[in-house]
């Protein structure tokens, strides 16, 4: 059933257009593609964050499907209300979809998300992960990786950026025994599009965690957003996976990793890292992949 949606078959319509995101913004690509897959029946909920800031500037309104801004903490609870309300007034063929940042999801919004999954509400929650609070000027979130420099985790002589590892939100969500959860990246839109399609047909709560780099916060040229996303997967610091029927499945199992150092040092947020810091990240990566390969289904797939 995988890989049915392609650039050829996806709708020509655009639902997120004319927006004010910075040139080369990964989050705006994730939102644009998600809505193209879901179509005009999508009712989107966006909390405070870059994608609501760049999409709703009255009277300039860049969503052509029904869309609303939620409180920062309340993406998932508003989705619950939207879904129940639309059903109550007899709307057919709609999908309540959340499009929230990493801060809005992993930190302040995690309680509402956990509650919605617990109730198994019929919603799709998409977290576009740019690894920091970008809209307020690049502060560390729970999804900022170890070593990254942000305005709240500066790098100096003694401390080299963020001291804490990236929260594993995909597995936190899966631990609720959610019907469907997946990781994705804008570096592989074919995989992302088909996971959205699959998630949209799930009865109950579905969650997709898509890595969507921010050229400003990561310190990369604006034309390298896609390449950096691909490098992140190739060096093993991100992986494509799904959780379904109580099972974890790895979608892509690289036989060897590309240089983690090359990935890190091509971004100014990691420029200060020393070899010892990079070793820590590589060791965390290796430990993670050892567990994944031991415990998850790793049967090959064509992506």
């Amino acid at each position, binding site marked *: 059933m995988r890989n049915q949606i392609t650039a050829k078959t996806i*709708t020509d319509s*655009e*639902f997120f257009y004319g927006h004010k995101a910075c040139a080369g913004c990964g989050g*705006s690509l994730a939102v644009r593609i998600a809505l193209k897959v879901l179509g005009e029946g999508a009712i989107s909920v966006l909390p405070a964050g870059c994608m609501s800031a760049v999409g709703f500037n009255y009277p*300039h309104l*860049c969503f052509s499907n029904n869309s609303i801004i939620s409180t920062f903490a309340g993406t998932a609870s508003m989705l619950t209300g939207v879904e129940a309300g639309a059903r109550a007034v007899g709307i057919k063929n709609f999908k309540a979809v959340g499009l929230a940042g990493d801060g809005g999801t992993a930190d302040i919004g995690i309680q509402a998300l956990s509650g919605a999954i617990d109730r198994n509400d019929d919603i799709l929650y998409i977290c576009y992960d740019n690894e920091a609070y970008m809209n307020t000027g690049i502060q560390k979130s729970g999804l900022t990786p170890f070593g990254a420099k942000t305005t709240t985790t500066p790098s100096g002589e003694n401390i080299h950026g963020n001291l804490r590892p990236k929260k594993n939100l995909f597995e936190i969500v899966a631990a609720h025994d959610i019907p469907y959860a997946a990781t994705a990246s804008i570096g592989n839109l074919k995989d992302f599009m088909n996971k959205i399609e699959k998630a949209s047909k799930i009865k109950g709560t579905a969650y997709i965690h898509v890595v969507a780099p921010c050229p400003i916060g990561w310190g990369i040229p604006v*034309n*390298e957003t896609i390449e950096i996303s691909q490098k992140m997967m190739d060096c093993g610091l991100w992986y494509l996976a799904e959780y379904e029927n109580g099972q974890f499945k790895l979608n892509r199992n690289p036989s060897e990793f590309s240089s983690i150092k090359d990935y890190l040092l091509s971004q100014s947020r990691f420029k200060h890292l020393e070899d010892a810091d990079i070793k820590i990240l590589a060791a965390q990566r290796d430990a993670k992949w050892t567990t994944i390969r031991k415990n998850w289904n790793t049967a090959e797939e064509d992506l």
Partner: protein
Amino acid sequence: MSKPYLRPYQKPQKLSDYPLGTASEAGYLVTKNSGWRNERPIITDECINCLQCYLYCPDGVIFKTESGLDIDYDFCKGCGICERICPKQAIKMEVETND
């Protein structure tokens, strides 16, 4: 095929011209983004219509036509992602001039 599009906007003159709530018409655009651009992507004859630029453009401004693809320069920001994703190097970035 549909998408948000540019429409006229009359600046409110008096209090009653302002909307009563925070809701307003979806897909109602009033400003272009073309002024953000330093470089303009040009699709050349090398194009094999693989649609990768169309798919990966964060702004969705590359669109299908009967003969191939075209670009909505009103909203292209000149990021150059299309040029980088193209497997045939069929997109050239040209420096914008003021005319």
